[in-house]
């Protein structure tokens, strides 16, 4: 992005991929314990755009992220997710990643006995379809690790094992840089980071945006990260739905007023729906 007017969002020029989420309904739990968490999510993210999803704790933001990535814990009960027209929901987890989706997790998982370097290379090989050339690969990894201010000894550690919160998030962004996805979902990548780490991690995301027309779905609870990563759109997410959408100015409104009004509206709406439902059942 060289100037604001040249952004794909602003010009409407086709720049890469489109992720389309339509009326997505998701439950967790089985049988009688099944609980609907996503209640009809609609969202379109184009390559080059950055969408911030902001919502209170428990509103279903991680559920949305995991559902797109294909975590087995979540059951899709309705709706569609497509990437460039392809049915994402029909793909296995690894196929989704190879199709160009990437999820930076809120809580990255420890994998004992698997070194970061082995993991990264295996992942890169899987995503690109061939083993990366050793020399350029080592250089790429080193360069990006240095940019993320990660010690090179890091590569020999086991994946996420004993990592601090900040190290885990840097490691997630390192993967984003190396795997070069078309769509990146960043689930609270900012939470638990001090100001320095937040800046370093944000710069990593901005480098990815500068290098390729990646679409970014930036999930966050706070507005803080939006000072470093500028969103084109802001969506307010409450009780499993997008309840308001706008431009960056919406973030400022949330900063000033919080989620209270939305949460109240949403509760009232849910109550109305429940009454309506009961009425039809009688």
């Amino acid at each position, binding site marked *: 992005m060289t100037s604001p007017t040249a952004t794909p969002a602003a010009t409407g020029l086709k720049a890469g991929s489109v992720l389309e989420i339509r009326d997505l309904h998701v439950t967790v739990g089985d049988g009688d314990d099944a609980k609907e968490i996503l209640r009809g999510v609609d969202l379109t993210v184009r390559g080059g755009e950055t969408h911030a999803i902001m919502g209170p704790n428990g509103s279903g933001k991680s559920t949305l992220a995991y559902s797109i990535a294909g*975590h087995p814990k979540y059951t899709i009960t309705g709706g569609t997710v497509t990437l460039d027209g392809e049915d994402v929901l029909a793909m296995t987890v690894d196929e989704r990643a190879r199709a160009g989706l990437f999820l930076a997790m809120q809580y990255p998982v420890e994998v004992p*006995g698997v070194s970061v370097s082995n993991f990264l290379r295996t992942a890169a090989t899987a995503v690109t379809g061939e083993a990366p050339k050793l020399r350029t690969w080592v250089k790429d990894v080193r360069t990006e690790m240095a940019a993320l201010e990660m010690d090179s000894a890091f590569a020999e550690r086991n994946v996420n094992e004993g990592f601090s919160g900040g190290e885990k998030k840097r490691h997630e962004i390192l*993967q984003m840089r190396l*795997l070069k996805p078309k769509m990146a979902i960043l689930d609270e990548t900012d939470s638990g980071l001090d100001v320095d780490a937040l800046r370093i991690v944000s710069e990593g995301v901005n480098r990815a945006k500068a290098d390729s027309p990646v679409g970014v779905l930036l999930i966050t609870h706070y507005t803080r990260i939006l000072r470093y990563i500028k969103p084109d759109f802001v969506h307010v997410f409450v009780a499993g739905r997008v309840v308001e959408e706008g431009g960056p100015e919406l973030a400022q409104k949330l900063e000033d007023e919080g989620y209270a009004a939305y949460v109240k509206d949403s509760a009232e709406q849910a109550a109305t729906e429940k009454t309506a439902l009961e009425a039809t059942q009688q």
Partner: protein
Amino acid sequence: MSSNDTSNDTSNTAELDTADLSTAELAHEEKAALAAELFAPGVGAQAGPPTTPATATGSAGDTPPGAHSHGGPVLTGQPVPTGSPAERFTSTDPDAFPKPTGREEEWRFTPLRRARQLLDGAPSDARLQVESDLPEGAVLTSVEAGDPLLKGLPEPVDRLAALTRQRSNGATVLRIAKEAVLDRPVTLRLSGTGAEDVVWGQLVVEVGAFAQATVVLDHAGLAKYSGGAAFLLGDGAQLTVVSVQEWAPGTVHGGQYDSVVGRDASLKQIVVTLGGDLVRLVSNVSYTGTGGQADLYGLYFADETQHQEHRLWVDHATPNCRSNVVYKGALQGEQAHSVWIGDVRIRPAATGTETYELNRNLVLTDGARADSVPNLEIETGEIVSAGHASATGRFDDEQLFYLCSRGIDAETARRLVVRGFFADVVQHIGIPELQDRLMRTIEVRLGALPELDEQPVEVG
């Protein structure tokens, strides 16, 4: 005092047992009195931690652990009744133990029929073939039965161990000179040459004060073998012991490993059991002074019909010592059976103790059975931390999801996770060639695992 949260265990567990334990504090004087009674050196067979040498054994100028007393009146003669029901019976006399019937706590998991030949205890002159690599500073020698060195060793805890002590008729002794820092590991390659006669063996490894050594016991071949080993660490000594069981099918291997950790000494023990029909190893650790450390790592991989049993007993009887137990095992095949018993005892005198034990079993196929029994007894409230966790289950869904979400296919992800599961323990050995060899063996065995491809793709 802080406590240790052991419940942040993310694996997919069939059984999850965690503990966050501490006990009421005893009055200080009361503890001190109890301690003096309990832990004086030279107390009788049934009391206290594994007994330690009451006198120096005069070996190679080393300071064997236990040659010095650490507080408390020196009692000699009569055993002191401790009143604790958890006290272990120990004796050098095989007949002091009843013949195992399978109902005894220490034998209830073991397939006694397979152990029969060992438990019958017939004398034998059969030996394992020994090939040794001895760096400078390490001396291999032997002592006759009745040598004072043997009298001072921790006593056998079961009939097989007592038989072994008696039948082995002396011992092989490895001495690491005081302050020696070995430039490479001591390797004893112990090969079985047949299963007709039982091989009885006893090894004593004496590590002089402030010495640093790694000792590898590399078991292979076919044998019916019962081998005791005692590792005596002088003050400030650092010893890594690696015991590899890559036995041929048909092998039965029993053994009691006793480690006596001196003041500020540190022991790292890595037990890797891959081969043999039946392997049953009892590892005991005691401390003779303050500041001792013991890291006990174990790895086992039980296939069809293999029985692999590891029993641990860490006895904290002195202040400010640390122990850490990590045993991981994988099982495949309907009859595969592993047993892990982890006993940790923190006696009243062992204030400032820090201990953690973990057993994790990965069940690769239906029908395999992993028994896991952690047991933590704490008799003082003044500890740093104490915890244990035991988990037995299938693949960890979260780990597989994480790998797959990076484009790695489910089959490769499973291999990475299992390989990592093993590598996690193997990498503590610190000898690259041996690590590579063990990982290759494991990979070959994983390759011969058709079920791995057929496992339901839970992250699909």
